[in-house]
């Protein structure tokens, strides 16, 4: 342990492993780096090498009413979707794993099916049925649509945790005097929480980044950020797009970190 680094023999395997990891990291971060360069470059087009550093695109992003309105709307929708999909997905997962439901495999596949369908079709189908049923396109319709897509993520992560769940732990609690409700809140929930929460983070990001489903369901002046960015891009392809992307990435990251702080992402060793 205390041998100085320079005395350690050269370990090919270890070096290769480190190299591979660095390569993967670069691969994952390169697109973000490119976006950042574009966002800070003063020219209104992608030029390499960059000719300078400016914050004008960020200023433009924050000063454009459409961007700000859609950013808040997207955040608000994503927050609602997170809560809804955690509740619905978590409850569905518990029912599927615990309830002695007939046709469980079918039901699981059914709940997962929004993932199988191209999202653009889901959006189009919902758009059509909303219009035909006279609902129109209210914000809650959009939230429901996002939730539909997000629930499978929560369902999947929660089912994975429940699959490895030792039910004796719940039995131990009940024999110690915990009523079924207390067992749920004292034992079941804390233990499946990492799975539910991981799914919730997915749900948030899926909603925040959602384009195909939103495409048909947004109304004029009620567009979400991805839709606004897409339309913006058709007319003005400048650094504001990149600035918006950077802000989105940072916001998503911040939300994940805050939730992590609040709820805790760590999985338990013995489940």
């Amino acid at each position: 342990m205390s041998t100085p680094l320079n005395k350690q023999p050269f370990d090919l395997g270890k070096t290769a492993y480190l190299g591979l990891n660095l390569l993967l990291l670069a691969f994952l971060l390169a697109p973000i780096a490119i976006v950042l360069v574009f966002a800070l470059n003063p020219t209104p087009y992608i030029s390499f090498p960059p000719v300078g550093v400016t914050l004008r695109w960020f200023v433009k992003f924050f000063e454009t009413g459409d961007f700000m309105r859609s950013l808040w709307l997207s955040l608000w929708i994503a927050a609602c979707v997170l809560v809804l999909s955690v509740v619905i997905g978590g409850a569905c997962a518990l029912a599927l794993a615990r309830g002695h439901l007939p046709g469980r495999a079918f039901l699981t596949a059914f709940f997962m099916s929004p993932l199988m369908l191209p999202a653009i079709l889901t959006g189009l189908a919902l758009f059509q049925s909303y219009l035909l049923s006279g609902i129109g396109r209210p914000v809650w319709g959009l939230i429901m649509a996002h939730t539909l897509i997000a629930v499978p993520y929560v369902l999947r992560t929660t089912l994975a945790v429940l699959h490895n769940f030792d039910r004796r732990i719940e039995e131990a609690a009940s024999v110690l005097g915990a009523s079924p409700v207390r067992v749920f809140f004292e034992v079941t929930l804390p233990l499946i929480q990492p799975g539910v929460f991981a799914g919730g983070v997915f749900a948030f990001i899926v909603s925040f980044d959602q384009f195909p489903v939103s495409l048909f369901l947004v109304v004029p002046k009620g567009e979400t950020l991805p839709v606004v960015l897409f339309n913006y891009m058709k007319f003005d392809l400048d650094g504001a797009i990149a600035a918006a992307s950077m802000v989105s990435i940072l916001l998503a990251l911040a939300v994940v970190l805050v939730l992590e702080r609040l709820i805790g992402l760590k999985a338990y060793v013995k489940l």
Partner: protein
Amino acid sequence: MTTRHPFSRRGLLRTSAGLAAAASFGAPSILHAETKTLKITTWGGKWGDIMKATVLPAFEKEHGCTVSADQAFPFVPKLQVSPKNDPLYDVLHTNSNEQWLAVVDGLVMDKITAKEVPNVADVYPYAVSDKIVGVSIFTSAIGLGYRTDKDITPPKSWKDLADPKLAGARGGYLIPVNSLGQCHLMMLGKIYGKGLQDLDAAYKALEQLKPIKLVDFTGQMEKMLLSAEVVEGVIHDSGVYRYEGANRQPVDFCSPSEGVMALEQVLNVAPGSKVKELAFAYIDYMLRPDVQKLLAEGVWYSPANKKVKLEAKYDAKLLTTPEKVATLIQPDWKWYNARKDDIDARVTKILKG
């Protein structure tokens, strides 16, 4: 954000009141005392800014209505899915090719005449020609944009794009998704073959243009020229003219001698619209000389109304005289759309290799 609270009590009350009314009269309820709403589509970017800041508020005030302007694509599929007797849009604003798609399904009207829209009497013939459904309120000219600082001879003909020196530095569009690319393909048929519909000649000519940089959004070509990734490419005039004055960039536009292709801004009305009169009034308004001037000078589009007088610098470059308008070539989108799938397959194969 606070304006649209999904579960507001009043919203619920209104919904249930509406349902009750609908149930008791057995017919779609018309709740009066509400101002009429005109639902339109419109572009974003600078155009959208002018519309939102000036053009639409003025129209709303004039007609005591509200305008709900959708800037989120895709317009035609959305219109297609909505009920015909209660369409999502009253006025559809698209380029010409999409109007032709929409008219096939009866989503928009065939023709708009001076009877419904008086200002149509003052438009250039192209704006209501047999190549147009609805009425074109502006047009751009599709020609060649080029860098003035890269030591190339300024192009004069569409054929100049094939100059071997431009290999890899010429720009075009992904033909399946971009109507400028589609126009260019037809133009290739005309200059290298028997006419706009000579696809075989067009395919052969396209093959000769490789290697070529392709973009999908129209706006991207502008950026490619600005960054000099493309030295010469197919583009609409407004995408080059707007870089003038303080925004001056080393780019220029050429109207090739063989003629320019028309990129029309078309307005049309959905037959099922509940506010048809208002829809026609809106189109008439958009054709009014003062509105035409404002938008034309704002985004460098050539106005369709003959009576519009632009400032000298715009007048010099845009298509504002019958002679200049005569250089416009209008593609037959009905013909093109009918073959689009075959063409897409073919050009994808050509450009992939």
